[in-house]
C-alpha cells in the first residue's frame, strides 16, 4: 500500500579529511519511533522520528531525502537526543542536483552511537472530529460519542506512529504546501515552527492508553494511545470518547437573525460537568443525531456542523423545523397616530407620526409531549413594546418570550408595538 516512499534515509559516514574521499554506505537504520502532531486548523503536521545512528570520530555526512512527499524542506531539523555534547552539525548543504535532498555534515568527538531526532513539517495529513449523538426516545438525554478521523495524503506511510492531534488554530505565515515546492526559508516561518516544536515537546510528558487530552498554551493536544499505522491515501477513524446520559434540552426557537424565518428545534447541552462532559474542549466537526426507535433500533434525526466548543461552553444544534410544532405571527391591527404637520407656505406636509401595531403570536404544539419555546422578536427604530405576557429584554431591540406548552396545547400571545417616525422619533 505504500504508493510512494520517501527518504531512503541514507547515512553516509565519510572519512573526514580527504576531499575526494571515498563514500561509504551505511545500512539504513529503521525508524525507532515516529510521532505525528497533526493540526486541524491548518494543513500542517509535525513529524518527529528518532533513530539510532553510529558516528565515526571526525566529520560524518548524513543524507536525508524526501522525494514525492509534501515535506517543507526549510523545516527539516537534526537534533541529537543522546550524546548531544559530543555531536555537532557543522553545516547543511542542499545539493544542486536535487531539490528533495539535503546533507548534514556532523562532527563527532569520537566513534559513538547516538539517538538522533529528525523532525520536519509536512502537509497532507489532516484530522477532523465527528460526533454521534444518540438521543433518548424523549430527547431528554443522549449518548455522545466523539470520533477523530486522521487522513493521510502526504505521500508517505507512517507505520506504528504515535499520533497527536492539536485542537485550536495556530498562526502560520506561509502554507506548507507552498514551501514543499522548494521556496526559500522565511524567518518568521522558522519562528513559528520553533514555537510549535517547543509546544509539541512540552506535551510529551505522559501517555495513556486512550486518546489523552491536555491543554497547552492556546491549544489542546489529543494523544492517541498506542501507535497507529495510516497508509498513504487512507483515512482512519478512532473513538475519542463516549459519554452516556448527557442531558439535552430541546427548545423550539424563533430567531430570524440566526435561523431564518422558521421555528427551529434547537438541542442544547453544555460542555461541562453537569452534562457529564467538560473534560476537554470539543473540536469543530459534524454532529449526527439519531434517536432510539425502540428495540435498540435507531432513527436518523439530522446532522449539523458545529464550531469549536470550549470547556463550559454551550452547544446549540439546530435540528431543523418540525411541522408538528408551529408558530404564526399575524399583525391584527395597524394604526397611525400622533400625526404632526409642518407648513411650507400654504402647503401642509406630514413630518412625524407613530405606527401602533398589534400582533398575535399563535403557538401550537401538536406533539404528544410538552415542549419549550423561545421566541425572539427584533424591532427597529424608536419603538415601545407592550405585552401582557412577560418578555425579557435581550438587547436594546430584542424581546424574548420563554414558554412551556403541554401536549396538544395552543397559545396566543398578544403584543403591541408603537414605533415613532419622522420628527416623532426621539432617536
Amino acid at each position, binding site marked *: 500500500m505504500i504508493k510512494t516512499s520517501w527518504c531512503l534515509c541514507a547515512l553516509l559516514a565519510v572519512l573526514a579529511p580527504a576531499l575526494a574521499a571515498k563514500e561509504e554506505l551505511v545500512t539504513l537504520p529503521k525508524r525507532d519511533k515516529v510521532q505525528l502532531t497533526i493540526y486541524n486548523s491548518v494543513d500542517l503536521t509535525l513529524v518527529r522520528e528518532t533513530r539510532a545512528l553510529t558516528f565515526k570520530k571526525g566529520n560524518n555526512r548524513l543524507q536525508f531525502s524526501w522525494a514525492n512527499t509534501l515535506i517543507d524542506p526549510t523545516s527539516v531539523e537534526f537534533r541529537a537526543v543522546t550524546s548531544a555534547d559530543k555531536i555537532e552539525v557543522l553545516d547543511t548543504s542542499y545539493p544542486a542536483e536535487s531539490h528533495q535532498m539535503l546533507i548534514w555534515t556532523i562532527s563527532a568527538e569520537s566513534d559513538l552511537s547516538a539517538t538522533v531526532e529528525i523532525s520536519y513539517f509536512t502537509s497532507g495529513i489532516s484530522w477532523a472530529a465527528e460526533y454521534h449523538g444518540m438521543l433518548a426516545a424523549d430527547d431528554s438525554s443522549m449518548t455522545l460519542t466523539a470520533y477523530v478521523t486522521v487522513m493521510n495524503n502526504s505521500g508517505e506511510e507512517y507505520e506504528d506512529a504515535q499520533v497527536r492531534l492539536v485542537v485550536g488554530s495556530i498562526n502560520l505565515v506561509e502554507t506548507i504546501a507552498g514551501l514543499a515546492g522548494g521556496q526559500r526559508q522565511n524567518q518568521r516561518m522558522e519562528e513559528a515552527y520553533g514555537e510549535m516544536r517547543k509546544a509539541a515537546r512540552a506535551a510529551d510528558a505522559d501517555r495513556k492508553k486512550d486518546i489523552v487530552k491536555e491543554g497547552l498554551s492556546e491549544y489542546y493536544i489529543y494523544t492517541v494511545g498506542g501507535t497507529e499505522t495510516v497508509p498513504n491515501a487512507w483515512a482512519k477513524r*478512532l473513538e475519542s470518547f463516549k459519554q452516556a446520559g448527557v442531558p439535552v434540552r430541546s427548545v423550539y426557537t424563533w430567531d430570524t437573525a440566526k435561523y431564518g424565518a422558521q421555528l427551529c428545534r434547537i438541542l442544547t447541552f453544555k460542555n461541562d460537568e453537569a452534562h457529564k462532559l467538560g473534560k476537554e474542549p470539543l473540536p469543530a466537526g459534524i454532529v449526527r443525531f439519531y434517536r432510539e426507535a425502540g428495540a435498540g*433500533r435507531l432513527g*436518523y434525526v439530522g446532522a449539523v456542523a458545529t464550531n469549536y466548543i470550549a470547556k463550559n461552553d454551550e452547544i446549540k444544534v439546530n435540528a431543523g423545523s418540525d411541522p408538528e410544532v408551529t408558530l404564526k405571527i399575524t399583525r391584527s391591527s395597524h394604526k*397611525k397616530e400622533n400625526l404632526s404637520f409642518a407648513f411650507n407656505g400654504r402647503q401642509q406636509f406630514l413630518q412625524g407620526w407613530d405606527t401602533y401595531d398589534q400582533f398575535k403570536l399563535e403557538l401550537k404544539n401538536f406533539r404528544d409531549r410538552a415542549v419549550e419555546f423561545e421566541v425572539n422578536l427584533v424591532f427597529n427604530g424608536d419603538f415601545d413594546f407592550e405585552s401582557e405576557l412577560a418578555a425579557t429584554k435581550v438587547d436594546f431591540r430584542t424581546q424574548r418570550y420563554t414558554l412551556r406548552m403541554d401536549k396538544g396545547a395552543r397559545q396566543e400571545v398578544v403584543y403591541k408595538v408603537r414605533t415613532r417616525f419622522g420628527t416623532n422619533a426621539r432617536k
Partner: protein
Amino acid sequence: MNKRILMTFCFTFGVGAMISLLNPTPADARIKLATLPDREAVVVRFDNPNVVMVEEERTISLQKGVNNVDFSWAGTQIDKGSIIFRPADPAAKVEILSTSYPPGEAALTWQISAAEAMSVKFRLSYLMANIQRETDYRMLVSKDEQTCSFKHYFKIRNWSGGRFATADFVTRDGKKFEKGLENGEAKRVLVNSWDKVKLTKEYVYDLTRQPEGKVLTDYVLKNAKEIGLGSIPLEYGKVRIYQDDGSGTTAFTGEDWGRFTPIGDDMRLNIGIAQDIKIEMKKMVNDVQNRRGNVYDTDEVDEYEIKNFKDTEAVVTLVLRVDGEWEMKATTSGHDSFERVDNETIRFKVKAPAKGTPVKLRFHYQKKNVW
C-alpha cells in the same frame, strides 16, 4: 491473531451480502473473498423527512483478539460518515477499535477486538441516497358530500443501486410493512384507511387564490378523532378526490396537494371551481375625506353581487383584503358574519339564496391616514 473479514453491500448479482476473510498481513493485500454473513433483519426508515436510513443486522464470527472486517458498498450511494456499526447487544464483549477508509473505494475496514472467539450480531446503519418516497391519498366522497373514505398510500422508489430482498419499511408515523424492493423498482402500498370521515365543504372567493374571481370549492378535513381521523399526522401528498355518483360508480372530482397536517389541524383541499356561484365586484363609492396636507382618509364601498344558481342555498366565504390602516363601517351589509383575520384580511360569510336570486355584500370601509 488477526482475521480479516469482508462484507459488501454489492448487489450486482443479487447476492444479498458478502463478507470475506482476508489475508491478514499487509494492508495492500486486501483480498476480498466472497463468503460469509447474510444481511438479516433489514429496516428502511423514513423518520427523517429528507433522508432514508437503512439498518441491517449481520452476525459475524469473531476470533479472539483483533479482527478486521471490511464493508464495501460499490454501486450504491451511502453517506460514509453516517455509518454506525455496533453490536446488537450493548453488553457484548467486543470493542470497535478503529475504522479505516481505503483510498478511492466505497469501502471501509473495522478493527474489532473480541475478548474470545464468538459469533456476534451487529447492527449496521447508514444513510442511503436515492430512495425516494411519496405519499398520496385517495378520497371517496359520499353522494351527499357529508362523509368520505380516506386512503393513505406510501410509495417508495429505489434508485439506490442496492436491492432489498426483503425489508421492513417504516414510515414517519411508525407504520411498518415488509416488502422486497429491487433496484429501480417502485412500490405503492396502502398504509392507512379511514372510513366515514366527516368533511366540510366551503365555497371561497379569494382573489389571492383565484385571481379571476371565480368561486372555489374546498373540502376541509380536520385531522381529529371526532371526525374519524386524528390517529397520525398526515404527510404532505397529492389527494385525488372521487365521488360516488349515485349510480354504482364514481367520478373523479379533482385533486389538490394536501399539506402536512398535524393532529388537530385542518387539511384544506380545493377540488375545483364552483361554477354555479358567480360573484361580481363593483366599487360604488370611492371618496376622499379629511384631507390634511398630503394626508387623507378615504370612504369606500365595494359591492359584491353574489348569484347562486344552484337549487339550494349556499354559504359563501369572501376573503377580502385592504392594505394599511383601515376600519370597517357599521353600514356594511348583506353578510351573515365576519372575522377580521388580520389587519389586512377580512373574511365574510354570506348566505346566498338558491336559483340565482342575487344577494349583495356592501363592504363599507374607511382607509385612514393615507399618503
